[in-house]
């Protein structure tokens, strides 16, 4: 069965550069969530989208922005990267706003900021 796809899988950037992470949800899933997992930390919710509209916002820095497109894929844009942004970024998807539905995670994008 098709799973959540994230690209790239690995990304190395320098401080103050920008990065764009992409997420392709499971087919028919209309809700996308972004999480950040720092080294040795549990995943922290960043932001979510339902039907191309932002549905919830967590601890996402102002330097980050995200959107969901008409084909339901989502992109997380990160600017003015800092060393502390180095983390594993997960995208998850679910169906119908997530209400009572399972949430599946992608393999993650490992971002390293040097």
């Amino acid at each position: 069965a098709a799973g959540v796809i994230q690209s790239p899988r690995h990304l190395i950037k320098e401080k103050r550069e920008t990065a764009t992470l992409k997420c392709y949800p499971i087919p028919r899933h209309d809700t996308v969530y972004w999480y950040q997992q720092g080294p040795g930390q549990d995943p922290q919710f960043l932001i979510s989208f339902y039907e191309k509209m932002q549905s919830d916002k967590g601890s996402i820095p102002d330097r980050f922005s995200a959107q969901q497109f008409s084909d339901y894929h989502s992109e997380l844009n990160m600017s003015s990267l800092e060393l502390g942004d180095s983390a594993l970024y997960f995208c998850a998807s679910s169906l119908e706003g997530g209400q009572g539905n399972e949430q599946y995670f992608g393999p993650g994008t490992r971002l390293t900021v040097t």
Partner: protein
Amino acid sequence: SQELEQSPQSLIVQEGKNLTINCTSSKTLYGLYWYKQKYGEGLIFLMMLQKGGEEKSHEKITAKLDEKKQQSSLHITASQPSHAGIYLCGADVVGFQKLVFGTGTRLLVSP
């Protein structure tokens, strides 16, 4: 403070032994998820529990939800080396499906 507490933090069991991992929430649970993560890799969905008293099984893994206690347990029967990894419980404590996660339980299964 952590909204979700997992115990134990780490566990080493001999192959073939049973084990239980607990997850306790300080808030009302609208949904409780169990995931498995290999180091530095993605989260593999195991189970989702929503109703009090609900119990689900997949192969040798069983999870239960005690809604009143705001607690879930994950039980592995006859553990195998393939069960090794980090088990994370995630909970919807707001009702809008964004998840907060526990600190994880690192499981090692020795031959």
